């Protein structure tokens, strides 16, 4: 059967009324958990597993796919409006998106995020449909040395989020790197810097850091540094134009969507990829290419459109190694794999042949889910931006309650809640003294990745440092990192 025929068959299954209903349930639930900080799609799917056992596998997976995509959408909403990203992948969206919301352009930011997610999700699903097996063969050439190089490349994106002062940005980065060292060293199994607290052995969860620095840190900071009573209510400006985006917004958004997709999908396919690296790389790229670079730091629409597209494209990319090799490369993918196994299905090279109906209806439901999300979210934009009109005492009270709930539910541990507030206090201090917080998060995510991959590469090569330059892909990626750092300077000097 050709790809095309298979896909048509997939659509005929996915478009059955009952399956449409499951897809709708999935995207609604996914959007809801995406909005809640700290409760990601992985946890939701895991908790729903026992409940869905009575469903046919196809229906269950259609719903799971909806949750997965829905959560990506939902996550961007709170990041933009409240500067409270619930997971690391939507931080880059929060950077410019929240600044836009503060200037009354929240609706435009939400629209470009929703449309960007749709475009990226659809294009990435097309790429998934057409080229999954071929892509995976390329991705397998990536070993530890290549991942180390990729982490180095991602580190260069720190330069885009440094803020005004180099030394403050670097200090923030090193705080994140330092926090990333806490816990069991995965290569040796030995504890480092855990201070004898057993709850710290698994390290500081990036979700705690993100919620602490952003949601809680912002709340503490606002309580501290804004005068009560003097409510600066941001009236949403009516953007006008098509779907809340002006002609200029459109012309600035669509190239960013495409670039975001181009970065997000391949990096999502890579085993050990995840969505953080592509979102930050996309942010850096948009900042470098922007026609109005001065707008970055004040709410530039490209800074929302690019990373949000990259995020969703990466989410689709993650499904490629999962379906073709049974390789879970993100927390959600790992839970989806467990779901497959519960039904006695084994994703892998044989899944496309043994379960074509399931695979193709899953892929078809991704298209359906994307359309559904767009239809569901665009009209909601107008309602969402009204969240900003809520009285601040209630809004921030609610944010803290939900953040503490998210932190507790990660491991069922009160230590995480304490850690959340301590990091929140740190976040408030950083804000108060004009330190950017994004480098700290990048440090926590990329530090362990760079360290582990470098050490794995060296262990495999038995201590031979030349692996990073003799392996062609690793060398090329490292060269790209060098260019990313040097080119802008060189251009500036020439101009």
């Amino acid at each position: 059967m050709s790809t095309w025929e298979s896909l048509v068959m997939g659509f005929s299954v996915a478009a059955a009324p009952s399956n449409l209903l499951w897809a709708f349930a999935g995207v609604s639930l996914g959007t809801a958990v995406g909005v809640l900080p700290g409760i990601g799609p992985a946890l939701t799917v895991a908790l729903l597993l026992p409940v869905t056992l009575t469903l046919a596998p196809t229906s269950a997976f259609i719903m799971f796919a909806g949750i997965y995509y829905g959560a990506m959408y939902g996550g961007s909403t709170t990041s933009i409006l409240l500067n409270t990203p619930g997971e690391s992948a939507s931080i880059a969206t929060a950077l410019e998106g929240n600044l836009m919301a503060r200037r009354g352009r929240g609706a435009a930011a939400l629209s470009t995020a929703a449309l960007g997610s749709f475009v990226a999700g659809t294009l990435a699903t097309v790429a998934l449909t057409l080229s999954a097996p071929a892509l995976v063969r390329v991705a397998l050439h990536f070993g530890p040395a290549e991942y180390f190089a990729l982490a180095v490349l991602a580190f260069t994106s720190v330069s885009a989020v440094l803020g005004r002062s180099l030394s403050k940005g670097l200090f923030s980065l090193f705080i994140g790197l330092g926090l990333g060292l806490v816990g069991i060293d995965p290569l040796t199994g030995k504890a480092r810097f855990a201070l004898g607290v057993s709850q710290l052995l698994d390290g500081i969860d990036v979700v705690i850091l993100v919620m602490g620095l952003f949601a809680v840190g912002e709340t503490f900071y606002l309580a501290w540094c804004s005068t009560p009573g003097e409510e600066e209510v941001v009236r949403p400006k009516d953007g006008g134009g098509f779907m809340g985006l002006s002609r200029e917004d459109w012309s600035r958004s669509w190239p960013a969507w495409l670039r975001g997709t181009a970065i997000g999908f391949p990096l999502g396919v890579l085993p050990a990829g995840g969505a953080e690296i592509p979102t930050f790389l996309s942010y850096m790229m948009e900042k470098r290419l922007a026609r109005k670079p001065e707008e970055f730091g004040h709410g530039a629409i490209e800074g929302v459109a690019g990373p949000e597209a990259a995020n969703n494209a990466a989410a689709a990319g993650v499904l490629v190694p999962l379906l073709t090799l049974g390789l879970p490369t993100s927390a959600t993918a790992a839970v989806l794999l467990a779901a497959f196994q519960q039904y006695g299905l084994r994703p892998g090279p044989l899944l496309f042949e043994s379960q074509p109906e399931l695979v193709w209806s899953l892929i078809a439901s991704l298209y359906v889910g994307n359309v559904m999300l767009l239809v569901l979210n665009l009209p909601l934009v107008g309602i969402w931006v009204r969240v900003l009109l809520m009285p601040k005492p209630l809004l921030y009270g609610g944010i803290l309650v939900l953040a503490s709930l998210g932190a507790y539910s990660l491991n069922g541990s009160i230590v995480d809640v304490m850690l959340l507030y301590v990091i929140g206090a740190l976040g408030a201090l950083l804000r108060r003294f004009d330190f950017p917080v994004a480098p700290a998060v990048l440090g926590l995510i990329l530090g362990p990745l760079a360290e582990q991959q470098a050490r794995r590469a060296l262990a495999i090569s038995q201590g031979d440092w030349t692996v990073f330059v003799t392996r062609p892909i690793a060398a090329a990626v490292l060269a790209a990192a060098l260019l990313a750092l040097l080119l802008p300077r060189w251009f500036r000097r020439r101009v």
Partner: protein
Amino acid sequence: MAPASPGGGWDQTARALAEVLLGEGLARVVEVENVSGAAGTIGLARFASSYRGEGDALLVTGLVMLSAIVMNESPVSLAEVTPIARLTGEYEVLVVPAASPFRSLADLTTALRRDPGAVSFAGGSAGGTDQLLLGLLAREVVVDPASTNYIAFSGGGDSLAALLGNQVAAGISGLSEYAPHIESGSLRALAISSSDPLPGVGILTFREQGIELALANWRGLVAPPGLRGPARDSLVNAIDRLVRTRKWQEVLERTGWVDLYLPGDRFGQFLRSEQRRIASVVRDLGSATATGENEIAEMVFPGIVGVGLLVSGGLLLARRGSESRAPGNPRALGFVFMGAVANVVLLEPTGFIVASSVLFVCTARGFGSRRWARDAFLGLALSAGAYFLFTRALSLSLPAGRLLP
């Protein structure tokens, strides 16, 4: 209690047990509590301290917990709890990529004897089942386990990618993880860790190939410490009835878990000997480091980070003092802090709803609200709504509080 987060093997075991216990009427109410972290040792410590002597609590445990207890220097060990039953398990396979020069286990062990560092093994987290198998294998073929080159990956997926991409020489993992790739021919299985050949699995055991090595990644159930007499017996009997039900057999069939049922006392004996064996191999793996390179690298990165912090901090100090800023509002911040502290202190004694409502009211006050009654009402409504959504719809446990019955 499942000492892991939702979705993992221990959690799935707990939830499958709950399903069968309820479905067969062996219990009226079953609640799954997830306490994750540090390979289950956090859950173990919590279980031992908060359920001491209680006859209605069970903890899912397994092989990985044994080595984690040694490696993390856990204050509580499995010797203190009451063994109830070993339930299920999975065997480990040793594989090489299809293109590998190693055609058989003998090829691999020969190379291992010649230069242990040159044969890189991919597997799961350090000190997990996969590395334990390598340690035991090394001992059997007279190689120092500490000299083996084990590359720990964060999950089965990552190590699988490294194998399929020919990045490493060999890999060790549970059979189910590699099975599709063994079938498709992209991986070659050299040996399986069961003691007897498995029906329907065409892989030679280590023992069939002359190496006295068997290891199962088993899972079992233990009851709290200090449980004796009839209370313990009734738990053992309940599980004995459970494993004989058709529902449980269906679960095993669906999940592919191997039935390794061992009741009460026999599980206790097994646990004691397994504990000795695992503790000694963990010691032999030494610091569980792979190669000499790793030993150095372990503190290299922290060193770089330390220097970076000092340098950037120094730069900041050198430039200090040029900025002035508004005084801020410490009173408002005080209210919010108070809410946070109260939240942490109250969470377990009074439960989630009360603690969150207090947090809500304090935060609202910090942001200038004077309408206590409205804030308290809204806080209560939000917390209660979230509480019931989580505990009922998502069956995730949140602290209910000890004050209310």
